[in-house]
């Protein structure tokens, strides 16, 4: 199924893009991230990230549906 992925900060730089359409068999953010980490050589481990699905914080084992937008959130540094 197709998942829309947006990238920010270090992940955006390492992916060399701010978003992409991914055609994947991953059914959870955890599996999806493993796939993308491999593809883009992300230096961050999942334990250092949070995940957002369709603009809201989600869980790593949450079921993904076709057309979902997923964001992996690196350690934040506001202020």
């Amino acid at each position, binding site marked *: 199924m197709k998942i829309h992925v947006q990238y920010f900060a270090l992940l955006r730089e390492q992916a060399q893009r701010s978003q992409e359409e991914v055609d994947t068999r991953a059914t959870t953010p955890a599996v999806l991230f493993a796939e993308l980490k491999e593809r883009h050589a992300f230096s961050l481990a999942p334990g*250092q990230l949070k995940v957002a699905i369709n603009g809201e914080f989600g869980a790593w084992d949450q079921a993904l549906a076709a057309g979902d937008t997923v964001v992996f959130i690196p350690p934040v*540094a*506001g*202020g």
Partner: protein
Amino acid sequence: MPLAFAFSQQPIDTAAARDELLRDPAAGGYVSFEGWVREFNEGRQVLRLEYEAFEQLALKEGARIVEAALRRFPIRHAHCIHRVGSLDLGELAVWVGVSAEHRGEAFEACRFIIDEVKHRVPIWKKEYYRDGDSGWVNCEHCAAAPRHLHSH
């Protein structure tokens, strides 16, 4: 009242933001916090920095923090504005203002808001150093040894 939490591409107009909070005639105490771009961070000389936000979620999360402060502390109003984009040394990165009838709660709520914003809101800071290097704060060395949140 403006949004409880907002981003700004332009320098933050703290006077205007403060005046909004102080229109309430019951607010006798006002506490503000400002975070400024300084030249040194953890011993490295900073030239400038960039803030990037996942605005869709950050606006929601920021608003939830301010709403939580309003529920948790008997305050009148609270507001937070965060810069995004490229910032030079000496620029204001974040502003929090809280008005209340009593000063104790204004202090507590202001601190609560800035602490939570720094921990929970998806905003990232990239520092550009004098030595030509650059890095995402709290993040660049994550793969080696996760660093915890830097506070200033």
